[in-house]
């Protein structure tokens, strides 16, 4: 057999390897940035100089490492893990390899909420912007559900169409809001739309982290049913899956993850599309392995992308969404070309 089957020990082994890769990427990311700390000096500081009162690092170096870079890295990891896990769920549930977390319009709804918040000057309030963005995406999810639910339950195709249409509708509203906004607001809006990881405070990071862990545990409980659903909903029923219930839980948990990530970080594209594909090609389609792998690798992927965004242009910062799309689009074309052959 050219691919070993998924066992608990394989899930653990793969997860440990990916966790190690993640850990290394976090360390490397910590050592890179505009403030010149030096790799050796930084590494020594991380190993032996992190505690209170150590003189290995200066106070400002400590502040940069642990109060500026570390929270941002953790935040990138949380957002990356959320979007990638949600991507796995949506691709499986909609049985569509082009599905991604934003496909049902969660991002469009969040954007309308966020832009409205920026225009109303709500950014000054703590949690103001994320709350409005979250509200926007929640409304969208409910709307898509109401449209997509027929009398015989949720139809994936209808849901997909509903998502596309609602997204298009929101795009129009976004364009309209942008056209009436002032120059100063425009800058904030654009950055939000491109995805920005520099906004988060530690309370927000903890909030997003809690949402991520809870919703991931929920979707992981449905990993095996999702395998069966990918093979067709009727087949899944014949093999004992309560398909209607599984779909609702997975849709809601996936949407929740996406909504939280988008609300705090803006629209960071491609992560949720590409990471599941990469992991599936590497490890196979079994969701019991695919979910934790995408979670961990998604975290790594966004940490790396955000590091590139921070250091690529000296004394300037790219929105991380630009980096993920710049790396993501060519990779996806490659994927399409090789898959077609």
């Amino acid at each position: 057999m050219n691919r070993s089957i998924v066992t608990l020990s394989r899930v653990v082994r793969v997860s440990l390897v990916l966790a190690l890769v993640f850990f290394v990427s976090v360390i490397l990311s910590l050592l890179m940035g505009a403030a010149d700390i030096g790799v050796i000096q930084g590494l020594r500081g991380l190993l032996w100089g992190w505690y209170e009162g150590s003189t290995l690092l200066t106070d400002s170096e400590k502040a940069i490492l642990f109060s500026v870079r570390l929270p941002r890295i953790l935040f990138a990891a949380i957002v990356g893990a959320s979007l990638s896990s949600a991507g796995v769920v949506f691709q499986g549930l909609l049985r569509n390899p082009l599905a991604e977390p934003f496909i049902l319009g969660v991002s469009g709804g969040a954007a309308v909420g966020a832009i409205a918040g920026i225009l109303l000057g709500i950014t000054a309030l703590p949690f103001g912007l994320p709350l409005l963005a979250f509200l926007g995406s929640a409304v969208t999810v409910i709307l898509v559900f109401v449209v997509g639910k027929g009398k015989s339950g949720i139809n994936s195709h209808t849901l997909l169409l509903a998502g596309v249409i609602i997204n298009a509708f929101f795009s129009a509203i976004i364009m309209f809001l942008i056209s009436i906004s002032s120059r100063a607001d425009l800058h904030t809006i654009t950055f939000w739309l491109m995805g920005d990881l520099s906004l988060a405070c530690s309370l927000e990071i903890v909030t997003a982290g809690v949402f991520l862990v809870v919703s991931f545990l929920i979707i992981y409980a449905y990993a095996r049913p999702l395998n069966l659903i990918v093979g067709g909903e009727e087949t899944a029923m014949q093999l004992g899956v309560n398909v209607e219930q599984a779909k609702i839980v997975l849709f809601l948990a996936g949407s929740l993850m996406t909504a939280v990530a988008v609300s705090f970080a803006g629209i960071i594209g491609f992560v949720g599309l590409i990471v599941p594909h990469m992991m599936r090609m590497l490890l196979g389609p079994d969701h019991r392995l695919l979910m934790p792998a995408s979670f961990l690798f998604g975290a790594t992927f966004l940490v790396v992308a955000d590091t590139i965004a921070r250091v690529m242009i000296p004394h300037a910062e790219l929105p991380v969404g630009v980096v993920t799309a710049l790396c993501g689009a060519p990779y996806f074309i490659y994927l399409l070309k090789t898959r077609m052959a």
Partner: protein
Amino acid sequence: MSHVSLKKIGFRYDETRVLGDISFEVQKGEFFGIIGPNGSGKTTLLRIIDKILVPCEGSVKIGETDLYKIKRNDLAKIVGVVSQDFPPLFPFTAHEIVMMGRSPHLGKLKFEGKGDLDIVKRAMEMTDIFPLAGRPFGELSGGEMQRVLIARALAQRPEIILLDESTAHLDIKHQIDFLNLMRNLNREEGLTVIAVTHDINLSSLYCDRILLLSRGTVHSMGTPGEVIRESSIEEVYETKVLVDKNPKNGVPRVTLLASESRDYSRF
């Protein structure tokens, strides 16, 4: 003891009546065939027994229990289905597909254990697909896919197996291999088989009893000798046939006649 019993089943798709007043009982350990022309409601009937479709009238019992009181996961331990299936989108291997048959027997977060893997291996050997184990399901031929799906149903270890045109894509060797396997499980382990098929001759060879459906109602039911008669086949299928006896074992044998059943000269 009756294993599956249907009482006065009626079913509609929107306004169109598909099934009406269908009643029959299948005994435990019986090999039961359902035949009938396209659109006579065979597959609908099977999907009702498997709780995919809910009839608008009548009741279904599995053993002594009302079908709608059985939880889906429990039902999957009793009833296995081999249907006409689409390949899954993502590249599951044949082995992984067969392993899905163990799903109803596993706890929510459990992985397949040694016992499950043995059952899966045996199911793959019985259907002659062990050499295909590592191949992606979507790359197999129609007949190979069919055998993988048969193996998946066997891995479920059901008491009742529903076959929906399960020999349609198989060559004659694998048709006979598969039906012999079904008959062995049927005779030796008391597996109840309900087979929907277009192949009247195969059903004549293997079934204890046959139900002939016509426009959603029972035309006739009984042993192959009672049901497969020239008059009833011609009436239900609207085609001229010759029915005689198989010289080896005396069961009815249907021969198609290339008679001009319709006049195409106008075209």
